[in-house]
């Protein structure tokens, strides 16, 4: 029952918000915070009661839903998904707290936000394609509104671009899902059953893999499907950017691991090297483009392209350490980039600009803010001792030791390491321009970070350190499942 409760609690909250009078904005805010807090607590409960050593599905809920098409209401968790199930409610709660500064159409905002949370949680727990797809699509609608109503200057454009782009991906994915259903016998939408049965021929696997890949790649986003991301990220309100970067992008990588890797093993091995090359492009291209940005938020947005590249690198490796690293990277990227987007929001709320060139010397004026920002940037660029280092290191190590085609992997991993340097470069340049040097007189009245913002950001900062020092907290969650997955794939 616990997964159903976690998943639908926000939806219930959203429906209750519909019934609250829209003038009582304070009540709506606190109520949303209470709902997301409760969801987060349940998420932690799952985290602590999750049995790490087991590759079996846990907290399984399975009952018949539409027997005519063999569709089941099937929820469950294993090492591939548990980390995201903890991260999602956490980020949702922090984003809700941060969103207390939303003044416009408060009721609708929190309604859509809670609806979004249900969609995201559902994606990570659903193990039946029909259910999975419904949750997958449910995330689109609130996102469209959250960007389109509460976004920045070009919000309408960004909203529709996001909506169309991701819908394109998901309908192509839908065809892949339908093909899996139609070519399995007995017909089933059950992801686990399909992965165990393995009834598909090689060619069929390649075609379906490609269809699913388009859907996932747009979400991740993998170059060249990434162009919606900078627009959506830059125009979205702060809390929504956090969710977008922290959770939504991971739906893509999670989908690949959960579906393509388990159901289409032949295709996964066949496409490992192309995926590796795309990972390299994501890393290097993302880093270079991030360096060229003048807008702070756009820079962070492109850094997401860059960091999701590390995740892809780990996935392409097909080694235990690489896959564990990829899953860990999803978590650390969610934590670190989530914090960075919050921090960009903090400065934008005060200065109403995000021009990197326009700041300078903020360290003297905003010591608290600058300190946290510094930690987050260093975590993002992979400083040892902070979260980013551990996961990126695992991804690189995994790719370097891959047994699929050792020569190619070693060369490409070597090239990808350049990404780290560029990442460090753009973060350091940004820090220098924004925080160091003489104080720009324009900003001498800026107040430092306030309590609401601290509540949203400090937990993430703590996590950065914690995950950096004790990576096992999160990285250990997936080991058993990854081992089982790799055994099924037939690689060591």
């Amino acid at each position, binding site marked *: 029952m616990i997964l159903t409760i976690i998943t639908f609690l926000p939806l219930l909250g959203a429906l209750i918000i519909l019934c609250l009078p829209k003038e009582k904005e304070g009540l709506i805010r606190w109520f949303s915070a209470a709902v997301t807090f409760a969801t987060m607590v349940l998420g932690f409960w799952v985290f602590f009661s999750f049995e790490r050593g087991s590759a079996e599905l846990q907290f399984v809920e399975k009952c018949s839903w*539409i027997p*005519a*098409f063999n569709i089941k209401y099937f929820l469950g968790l294993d090492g591939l998904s548990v980390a995201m199930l903890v991260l999602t409610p956490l980020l949702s709660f922090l984003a809700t707290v941060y969103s207390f500064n939303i003044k416009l159409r408060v009721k609708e905002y929190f309604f859509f936000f809670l609806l979004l949370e249900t969609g995201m949680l559902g994606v990570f727990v659903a193990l039946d394609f029909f259910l999975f797809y419904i949750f997958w*699509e449910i995330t689109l609608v609130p996102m469209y509104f959250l960007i389109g109503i509460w976004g920045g200057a070009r919000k309408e454009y960004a909203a529709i671009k996001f*909506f*169309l782009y991701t*819908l394109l991906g998901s309908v192509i994915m839908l065809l892949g899902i*339908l093909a899996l259903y139609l070519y399995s016998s007995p017909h089933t939408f059950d992801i686990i059953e399909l992965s165990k049965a393995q009834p598909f021929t090689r060619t069929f696997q390649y075609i379906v893999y490609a269809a699913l890949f388009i859907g996932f790649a747009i979400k991740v986003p993998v170059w060249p499907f990434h162009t919606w991301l900078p627009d959506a990220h830059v125009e979205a309100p702060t809390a929504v950017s956090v969710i977008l970067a922290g959770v939504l992008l991971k739906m893509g990588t999670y989908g690949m691991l959960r579906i393509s890797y388990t159901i289409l093993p032949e295709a996964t091995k066949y496409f490992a090297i192309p995926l590796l090359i795309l990972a390299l492009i994501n890393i290097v291209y993302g880093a270079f483009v991030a360096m060229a940005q003048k807008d702070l938020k756009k820079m962070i947005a492109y850094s997401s392209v860059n960091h999701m590249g590390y995740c892809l690198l780990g996935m392409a490796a097909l080694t235990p350490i690489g896959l564990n690293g990829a899953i860990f990277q999803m978590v650390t990227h969610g934590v670190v980039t989530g914090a960075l987007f919050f921090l960009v929001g903090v400065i934008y709320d005060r200065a109403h600009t995000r021009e990197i060139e326009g700041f300078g010397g903020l360290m003297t004026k905003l010591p608290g803010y600058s300190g946290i920002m510094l930690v987050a940037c260093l975590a993002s660029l992979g400083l040892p001792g902070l979260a980013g280092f551990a996961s990126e290191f695992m991804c690189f190590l995994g790719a370097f030791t891959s047994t699929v085609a050792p020569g190619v992997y070693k060369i490409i991993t070597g090239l990808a390491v350049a990404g780290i340097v560029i990442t460090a470069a753009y973060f350091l340049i940004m820090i220098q321009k924004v925080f160091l040097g003489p104080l720009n007189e324009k900003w001498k009245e800026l107040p430092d970070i306030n309590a609401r913002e601290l509540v949203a950001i400090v937990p993430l900062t703590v996590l950065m350190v914690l995950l950096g020092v004790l990576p096992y907290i999160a990285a250990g969650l997936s080991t058993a499942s990854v081992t089982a997955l790799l055994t099924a794939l037939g690689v060591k």
Partner: protein
Amino acid sequence: MFRTLPLNISQGLAALTPELLVLGLAFLIIAADLLMPPRRKKRLLDLAAFGLLVCFIFTLPGIFQPAGYIFNNMLVVDPFSGFFKLIILASAVFMLLMSRDYKPLENNKTGEYTALVVLVTLGMMLMAGASDLLMLFLSIEFVSLIFFVLVGFLRHDVKSSEGAVKYFLLGAFSSAVFVYGASFLVGAAGASNFASIQRHLNEYGVSPLFIVGLLIMLVGFGFKIALVPFHMWAPDAYEGAPTPVTAFLSVASKAAGVAVLVRTFISLLPENANVNLILAILAALTMTVGNLVALTQNNVKRLLAYSGIAHVGYIMTGFIAYGVFGIQSVLIYTLAYLFTNMGAFAFAIAIYNKTGSDDIRDYAGLSLVNPLLSFVFFIFLISLAGIPPTAGFLGKLLVLGAALDSGYAWLAVIGVLNSVVALYFYARIAYYMYFAEPRLREELKPSGALKLIMAVSLFFVLFICLFPEKIINITGQVAGILRAFNGL
């Protein structure tokens, strides 16, 4: 499951109870129109809606009845016709409820209007059960003639007259083509009823002449359901007609057209005749043209007309799969389309009553004054676009599944690409409601009847997707019996 022997007259009449009730209702309305004082004529609409609701209840057992021919094979009663009769009756009830509150229709010959609506409902019910080329032609003509009048019902509105004339001219032409095609069939098979033609086909096989005749008839059907390239009349007729008539035309008339198309092709066209490719190309064209043209529409009725054309393309996609699964997907898609479209049109009427405009740009700011109503309308829009958790999604899923299952992967790909295009213009409406600079300042107060339509539609739009088991089973049976009883 079937009655093998033809039924005698009294059994036939018993099987036609719903139609007879509707006929009686029409006479009742005409009589009541004479007797009622002019100020209370609105009651006629209520009376008709109530009467059709009763007929609906009488028709309900129809989807579980055994199949059989009646009146010397002129008509067939089977679950398939029962299913479409229910859709037609339901949309007629919705339509009459909408007409109550549609301003341009107030004090405008309500009696005649109501009687025509009831009669056209009867005509479409007969279409759904026609199993003889003659009966088919007569019922189609009956329906078309009444619809010409209904489309032009706003006599002082130029657009209404324009729509009616276009509809009439093209309709007359396509009827002629239909008869021409039917004459090939009669010539080739020596009989006009489906049962005899099937016997002939089983004995002598299909001649090219026969196939040609069937394809010519397709033009006639294509006109009815607005299949590209026979769709030209639809946007003008939809725009000009009173909005309730537009809703009726887009749902009931289309459903009836789909019913005769499916029945005729299933009954008369052997699977090895290789015309499915033609149908598939038409389906792809219909979806694509409908959606692309809809992109630039600002009038909500025209937009829904073009999107309706695209939906016909999807229905055809399911149909070309030809098997039980394909027919089932057509049935579910039609059902989803009924509720979604009716909800959307009820909404368009509510806005029109307030602003006097069908322009979607005048929807700007609606979400500020009517947040709940806007969101409900948005749910109808995503159902039209085929996004879960709505009925439109289930329909699209099944249609695509049927296409993939029968090897038309390319058609399925065109189908999904089209749904992305479609999302753009549906989202454009959402854009005006939610994001654009507000123009509407006052709250809309839709009447009780409109609210009822929206609530019922919303319920079914969500219900069909989330709890479809029953509907899937029933439609599966309906499709199975159709294949077994009518199929070659």
